[in-house]
């Protein structure tokens, strides 16, 4: 199968014909324009190696994320970054290419933090392997982490090895009523103390906090934080709604902006109330404000803004890069994909 994918890329590169690398298409909405003939990666599927006591799983790009998570759950383990699926059938390849992490990100780390190694096919149809299946590896540049969030512009991600973690023994969710600035202040204070906060979400004057870990620790923290406890199934549905953006807050067609900010940044003076995750470091905004206004506010707060869903992509989906970084992006793209056939325009319009 990998050979067939290579052949398609070799052939497309030969005639400089753009290819659109695609798994289940659950994240078609994300990123810049979709161009080129679809190259479906789903047939290259399956878990290659999973050794729970090594805390490492290796799987092919077409493996459904749900299947992978199921296999881990059967051994009491998980992908700690809680990747959003954004639709049934979401694949591992798409998950890594999008590089998105879910509610546990602020506590456990991002997708890229758990990538240990990868195989890819670059734009010259070479099958390359970087990193490995071990926890520590500093041989060569860290190309496998670079693939996380590259949206398929550097290569077709064939196979990825992840560090996995045990599922927490206990999870407990609390709800508190707090205005935005108080919620931000509390979240930053708690993050500076040894408390087992594993997720947070604030919207419309309510703050949800998830505690994870050993039972005694979770119980003690719950007493300390106060608020109302949410019953387990209810809590599960709530966090799934945040992770998959099926929570009613995300409904409607007003453009959805993703603002990545320093967690302690003050509430932004932008029209529309946010939904805040990651202890304050991720702020979703429904707003028809023009892109320049949103981006300027994010930049002033020390972060950046992405037009995540909807809206007018003509103004650019991702925050424009400083000239020096833009040049590095173009040079790296040329190093991986000299003919520029892999997902052109998906990340930035110029490559």
């Amino acid at each position, binding site marked *: 199968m990998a050979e067939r994918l290579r052949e398609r890329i070799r052939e497309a590169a030969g005639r400089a014909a753009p290819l659109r690398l695609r798994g289940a298409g659950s994240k078609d909405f994300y990123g810049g324009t979709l161009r080129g003939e679809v190259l479906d990666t789903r047939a290259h599927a399956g878990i290659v190696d999973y050794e729970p006591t090594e805390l490492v799983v290796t799987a092919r790009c077409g493996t459904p994320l749900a299947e992978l998570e199921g296999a881990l759950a059967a051994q009491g383990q998980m992908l700690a970054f809680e990747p959003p699926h954004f639709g049934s059938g979401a694949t591992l390849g798409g998950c890594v290419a999008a590089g998105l992490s879910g509610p546990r990100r602020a506590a456990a780390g991002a997708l890229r933090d758990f990538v240990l190694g990868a195989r890819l096919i670059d734009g010259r149809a070479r099958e390359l392997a970087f990193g490995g299946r071990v926890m520590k590896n*500093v041989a*060569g*540049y860290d*190309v496998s982490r670079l693939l996380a969030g590259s949206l398929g512009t550097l290569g077709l991600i064939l196979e990825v090895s992840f560090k996995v973690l045990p599922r927490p023994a206990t999870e407990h969710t609390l709800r508190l009523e707090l205005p935005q600035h108080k919620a931000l202040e509390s979240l930053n204070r708690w993050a*500076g103390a040894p408390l087992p906060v594993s997720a947070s979400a604030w919207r419309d004057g309510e703050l949800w906090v998830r505690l994870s870990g050993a039972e005694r620790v979770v119980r003690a923290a719950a007493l300390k934080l106060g608020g109302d406890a949410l019953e387990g199934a209810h809590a599960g549905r709530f966090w799934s709604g945040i992770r998959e953006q099926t929570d009613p807050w995300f409904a409607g067609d007003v453009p959805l902006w993703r603002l990545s900010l320093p967690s*302690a940044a003050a509430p932004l003076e932008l029209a529309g109330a946010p939904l805040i995750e990651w202890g304050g470091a991720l702020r979703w905004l429904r707003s028809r404000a023009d892109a320049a206004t949103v981006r300027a506010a994010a930049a002033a707060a020390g*972060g950046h803004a992405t037009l995540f869903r909807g809206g007018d992509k003509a103004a650019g989906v991702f925050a424009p890069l400083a000239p020096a970084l833009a040049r590095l992006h173009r040079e*790296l793209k040329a190093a991986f994909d000299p003919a520029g056939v892999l997902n052109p325009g998906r990340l930035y319009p110029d490559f």
Partner: protein
Amino acid sequence: MGEALPVAGRERQRAVAQALRAFLPERAVLWQEEDTRPYECDGLTAYRQVPMVVALPETEAQVQEILRACHALQVPVVPRGAGTGLSGGALPPGDGVLLSLAKFMRIVRVDPVARIAVVQPGVRNLAISDAAAPYGLYYAPDPSSQIACTIGGNVAENSGGVHCLKYGLTVHNVLRVRGYAADGEPLDFGAEALDAPGFDLLALVVGSEGMLAVATEITVKLLPKPPAARVVMASFDDLQKAGDAVAAVIAAGIIPAGLEMMDRPATRAVEEFVGAGYDLEAAAILLCEADGLPEEVEDEIAKVKEVLTRAGATRLTVSRDEAERLRFWSGRKAAFPAMGRISPDYYCMDGTIPRKRLGEVLGFIGDLEKKYGLRCPNVFHAGDGNLHPLILFDANDAGELKRTEAFAAEVLEKCVAVGGTITGEHGVGVEKINEMCVQFGSEELELFHAVKRAYDPAGLLNPGKAVPTLARCAEFGRRHVHAGALPHARLPRF
């Protein structure tokens, strides 16, 4: 010893020093051999080269000017922090400038609310935690040389430590790196936010061994200091059983703060040296640390004891207080200086293997001890599979040196063969550059060179390190390893 500059190079040296003196004070440009000699090597002393010129800038503007001037003159530049690196990553260029960041020692800002520290690259690893301590915070990665090594060097090497299974490596704990490209262009990777737009260039620059950019300011994450920590010391009468016990701890859903193993030759050497209270009859001992809230630690220690007992531990001791905890660790941290006491020289390897292959690899090393007639105690970051076999030899005996090289070569090849890597945390530098030919194929190496060219088309920044040329791989065919002993022999390591 590296050669002093040949007469032919003197003119070039004068020209470069003069170009730098145009904007640097006299004390910041060293070129006389008595001044440049101290920079001839880093922690890997087997490789020495006196640099043509040493530059000691104090400001970012000066760093930029140095890079611009060197770029204009096409002079190689090698950045250096404290020089404690173990792979020769800061080996100077005989025809270039050693750029010391030693004067960049300022902690710019500690923000206890945002839980970050903004520091200059010459700040020592431990100094960050010291500065954060009043707020109950600390910087997690703790390479054992943390009293001396700098954060700039940690970023270059993606340094680990004994707590990285739970708390991650440098790459997991750095938010932002500001610095300059080889031509002096300012660069800013990452952000004080948790991510930045575009490719993850922050992940790429961490561990790039000073070949892509020169860092001048680094923002790190600070974590709340765990209020409690205790360590279990367990004895095993068999190495494989100890390896299986590590797997059993992980299988029980525990991620210990630290999980270290030492074999009997290693414990015997350190016990004589520091008196850590190790069980000298055990074939191997495991140190397993739990940290967190007191009740969390109590529960985890109970669970660990149960798992280790079931796994066949012959003796279990739990640290009763902080003094005892530190005493248990003192032996582990003194493993390297202890080897220095029982052998004139020792050669440290840094392979990482899948943990399940531990028994096989240790057996293989045992066979090699007989084959080469050399002793090789083992210390092992068991939690993350990072093995540090220490070959004991006498560098004055040419035969032993040669046998050590061959021994080490076989061990590293074995690490690759079982699915591991030639370096878990010390970097490639010049030391393992030939092993890179074993670890990677020519196409991967070609891509590494292309990545390097994207940042540094002229190839001036730390040239010749970390990634071998294809010609070099062809020439060496099978690689060969040079031995090196450590300076600062009493500095805790690994």
